[in-house]
């Protein structure tokens, strides 16, 4: 894809893999030694390394969050969110055990409430991270409401089964637009008007491939099962099918899905502007597949210990593909008044791991 004016690639990642792996291993050792309390400071160290490796227009990005902030946020969420929620879950389960229908009702409220809180927590975590991200001494930030974002997420998740998945491209983009429209640098906002018009073709292909594959596999299973009923031998027929089926899953499902994801990222970046400059992302299906398979294997074989490396690969990838058409008027961007939350990421750190960044 050729852009109209020459687009520049102002983002670069300079971080080395060795340094990141070393940090990950030291973090593992310290986490074990401190009954995992180190993890807040460890995560902060990883972020410092991730952020500070990025330069934009030759000036480095900084991460100014601290482990203490994450720790305090965790403690607050433990008392305010987690313990009351745990009490409610225990009560609901006791009611279910005793056969009281109120228990089922309570649980059916608690599950969506938990998902809601996780979505709201993820949005708040993003606000914390952006407010601790500096470039040329100017802070990033996030406006918008965590509850509003959580409600929108819930709406998408509710519509997903009702539409047999077809709401996904629109819903995903709707949420991405909300995040980007509320992302600030200094006193200026990003603006995202990305649409999904060009995405539904790719999504349809991916959807049909996945449905066809799932249908085929279930048919094969039924067939094998019926055969084994007659002959009484299940193992020999089914064993060679499993690797074939896994390989089939990678080819038939991953390829079209990666094709869709690549389209999604291009559309999202292409619809995003900041102070007169338009972004673009040269994401291709193959690079995306390489990135995700590599990341999956690293996480799997290191049992999650090397997740910082995964994060580094994602940062490098993003820096490599992001291009900017035009240069924002930096002199017009002033420091924002909002210094962000005092403590970090409470809800997410209790209710969900969320990863390294």
């Amino acid at each position, binding site marked *: 894809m050729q852009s109209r004016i020459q687009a520049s690639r102002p983002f*670069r990642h*300079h*971080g080395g893999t060795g340094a990141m792996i070393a940090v990950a291993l030291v973090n593992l050792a310290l986490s074990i030694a*401190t*009954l*995992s*309390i*180190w*993890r807040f*400071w460890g995560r902060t160290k990883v972020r410092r390394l991730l952020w*500070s*490796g*990025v*330069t934009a*227009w*030759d*000036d*480095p990005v900084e991460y100014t969050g601290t*482990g*203490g902030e994450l*720790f305090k946020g*965790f403690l607050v969420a*433990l008392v305010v969110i*987690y*313990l009351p*929620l*745990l009490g409610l*879950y*225990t009560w609901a*389960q*006791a*009611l279910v*055990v*005793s*056969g*009281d229908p109120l228990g089922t009702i309570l649980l059916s409220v608690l599950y969506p409430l*938990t998902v809601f809180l996780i979505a709201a927590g993820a949005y708040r975590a993003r606000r914390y991270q952006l407010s601790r991200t500096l*470039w*040329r*001494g*100017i802070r990033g930030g996030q406006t918008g409401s965590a509850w509003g974002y959580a409600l929108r997420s819930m709406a998408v998740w509710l519509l997903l089964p009702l539409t047999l998945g077809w709401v996904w491209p629109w819903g995903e983009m709707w949420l991405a637009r909300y995040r980007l429209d509320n992302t600030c*640098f*200094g006193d200026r906002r990003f603006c995202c008007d990305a649409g999904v018009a060009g995405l539904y073709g790719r999504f349809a292909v991916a959807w049909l491939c996945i449905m066809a594959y799932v249908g085929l596999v279930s048919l094969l299973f039924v067939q094998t099962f019926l055969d084994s009923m007659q002959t009484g031998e299940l193992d020999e027929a089914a064993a060679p099918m499993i690797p074939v089926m896994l390989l089939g899953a990678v080819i038939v499902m991953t390829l079209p899905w990666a094709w869709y994801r690549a389209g999604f990222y291009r559309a999202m970046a292409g619809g995003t502007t900041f102070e007169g400059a338009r972004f673009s992302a040269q994401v291709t299906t193959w690079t995306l597949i390489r990135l995700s398979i590599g990341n999956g294997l690293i996480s799997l074989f290191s049992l999650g210990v090397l997740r910082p490396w995964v994060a580094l690969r994602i940062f490098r990838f993003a820096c490599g593909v992001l291009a900017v058409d035009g240069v924002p008027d*930096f*002199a*017009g*961007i*002033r*420091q924002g008044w909002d210094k962000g939350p005092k403590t970090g990421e409470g809800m997410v*750190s*209790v*209710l*969900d*791991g969320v990863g390294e960044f």
Partner: protein
Amino acid sequence: MLSDDRSGRFNDGKSAASRKVRLWSLADGVEIRGEDGFLIAVWKTADLVDDGELPGGKGLRMRCKAEPDARLTVEAAVFVRPVAKRGTFHWRIPAAMALGVAVLVGLYLALPNLARQIALVVPLETERGWGNQIAAGFERQMRACRTPEGNEALTRLVERLAAGLPPERRAVNLRVLDNAAVNAIALPGAEIIVFRGLLDQAGDPDELAGVLAHELTHVGERHPAANLIRGIGVGVLATMITGDASGMVASGAATVMAAAYTRDDEAAADRGALRLLKQAGIGSAGFATFFRRLEVLEGGKGLLPAWLSTHPETASRAAAIDAAADPRKLPPSLRDAEWRAVKSICGKAV
């Protein structure tokens, strides 16, 4: 301090503009001037903070404590004297860490006692509510065994033994459930569940009386409620350590109930059982016999009977019971007809 005048880039921390500057070293700091020579800022040496190298190694970064948002990038600077390093060692982090570990370990060690104290302030009605709910849950999964004669005999035995408990704990509700587990459990409030397997294994009424006396002591000392609270506490601690609540939320009252009693609780229940048996005028020999019988079962089948797996250290406990045994010869705790009614309460022949 800078050895010479140098060029660099300056961000004032008020806007995102980047300005080319010239730097002049002074006796006690750095003078930052625009390319037109106009003075922008003077940074004192004492306030200078080294921000490390620019990624890619094309310059050094500096900050000033007096202007925390401003940034200076010096192109290929040579320092005569190094400025203060940013990464100075903070004692507060290891201190916070040590405090956190101490709190976690302390909470874990204090948990049994803490749970016991909390259980003591839980109102009896609330505790009964928990017990009823859990017992009702068991009854929905297993058939409850009831015969008029069997229940009457069991009720009379329980009432005789419970006479030694605090008054508000005497109204014990005993259920027999049709399950092969050789087990009896005390629930919060005053609920005791006996499984059919235990009745099958008991050789005479005194053996059953011993087990009931043991469980009644758990009831009298509020061990089940303390256990429940302790189980929840372990889950909370696990969440604090792993930072992952999903497992805890999924597990519930059922797994919490599976937590074994503490060793202290078991010893207390054995002592209390002897006291209750003595007050009821029932011999304790059957209690010891039952322990030995379970031990044989355990050896023979290679399976730990359920009551043992929640009540470990059988041999030493049987010996302790023997040592404290009442030497008097006492009549059996149930008459033959009563005992037969109890044994066949689930409809099985004696």
